[in-house]
């Protein structure tokens, strides 16, 4: 089995109105429950806005602290799910379900290194 990171990228700015957001969150919850029932779910979570991020980086002998996300842009990682899957096809299948639940936002599927436990 390998592990895959399914990440959601979302545009910066305020979240959609509750009447838009609520059904989306419900659908995402349903997919997560399906993952748990299938025994493939490892972890998932949504993140606060990128403006809440802090970056640490070593410069010479000290660690520099800066406010805001590391990558500049109009879209940032909004949340992610980690699943266990035998191969990319199975991981993409879960990704597809998430993409459907999340409506218009893209899901990026990436394999973890060294997650083979067989």
């Amino acid at each position: 089995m390998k592990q895959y990171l399914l990440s959601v990228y979302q545009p910066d700015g305020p979240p959609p109105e509750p009447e838009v957001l609520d059904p989306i969150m419900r659908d995402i919850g349903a997919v997560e429950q399906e993952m748990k029932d299938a025994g493939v779910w490892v972890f998932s979570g949504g993140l606060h806005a990128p403006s809440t991020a802090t970056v640490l980086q070593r410069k010479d002998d000290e660690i520099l602290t800066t406010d805001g996300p590391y990558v500049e842009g109009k879209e940032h990682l909004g949340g992610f799910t980690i699943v266990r899957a035998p191969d990319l096809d199975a991981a993409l299948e879960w990704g597809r379900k998430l993409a459907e639940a999340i409506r218009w936002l893209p899901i990026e599927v990436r394999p973890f290194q060294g997650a083979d436990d067989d």
Partner: protein
Amino acid sequence: MPAAARVPVEEIEQVFRAEHGRSVAVLVRVFGDIDVAEEAVQDAFTTALQRWPRDGLPPSPAGWIITTARNRAIDRLRREASRRDRHAQAALLQAEADPTEEGPVRDERLRLMFTCCHPALAPAVRVALTLRLLGGLSTAEIARAFLVAEPTMAQRLVRAKGKIRDAGIPYRVPKEADLPDRLRAVLAVIYLIYNEGHVASSGDRLDRADLGVEAIRLGRLLAELMPDEPEAHGLLALMLLLESRRPTRSVAGGELVLLADQDRRRWDRDLVAEGQAIVRACLRRNDPGPYQIQAAINAVHSDAASVEATDWRQIVQLYDQLLAIAPTPVVALNRAVAVAEVEGPEAGLALVDALDLDGYHLFHAIRADLLRRLGRVGEAASAYAAAIERTDNAAERDYLRRRYEELSP
């Protein structure tokens, strides 16, 4: 020297080229790794170069290559595994678990084809991988065919194989539910290879025969491996019928000759007969798809002794069918050409003018031809100029320039 000996190097190369897809595919299953499989076949080639000239060709070259490659790879992996190379250990483990004598129900090449054409790989990468692994073309040959530098192509292949390994793209024929989509991707890759050989989108020569031949070889293989998929047969028929006209598509000096002006007596009758037989079988099966319909359209052309003798009404009907399942402007453009033959250039032009294909050189070339036939010379001239501006293929450009110059007010 015994009579069996004297196998020339070229013959050894040919055998390896012909058996490359099968050998690599079986070894990928054995070792679960493309690089190990390719390296193993390369090792077997080196061994063959030493042995075959002395011992003669083995009775079953494919079996010899696979067995030799497998043994060489296992020896190598044992050495590497003992040095705690985790990658080698994994491949070795996979090989030991592999029931070698199992009679494959489905050809391994089919699995590998679906891996090479996986939607998680970029289309250009699918084409290169398919040619490399199943076609047995060298990286240099593929680079030349697609007019990119060899190191660029090599890097593209390395990255693709890395993604297959690290992301875990499986070696598997997709399950029933995914098969239609995934098969479409495989067909598209083969047809892309054919078209690249048929009309080089840039460069000086119109044909790059090797890719056309290679695409037909892959098409035959796919049709053989998936006998129940009518579109696989449709694609093969389409390529065979297009291929039958290759000798007449250009004249000495490389100039393009359009279908209407081709010397039909020089079409390859064997290819026509084979293509038409497949089309007839597809019609009996009555499960049409875009490739089958395009093949049928070309079969109608192949039947006609001249443009005038062509059954254009039937061609329009086939385009109507094609347009219903593949409603693209390019299909509509080709339909307009057929309509012009049935109802006259005016009717064709009205359809052409309704299309939004300004960037496509053939849109302008077809408009130019219809305008010329309507005697609207000035407009025809500017349409030819627009077409010339939009193609990088020298043979096509020469052809268009010639037509442009032939326009007399």
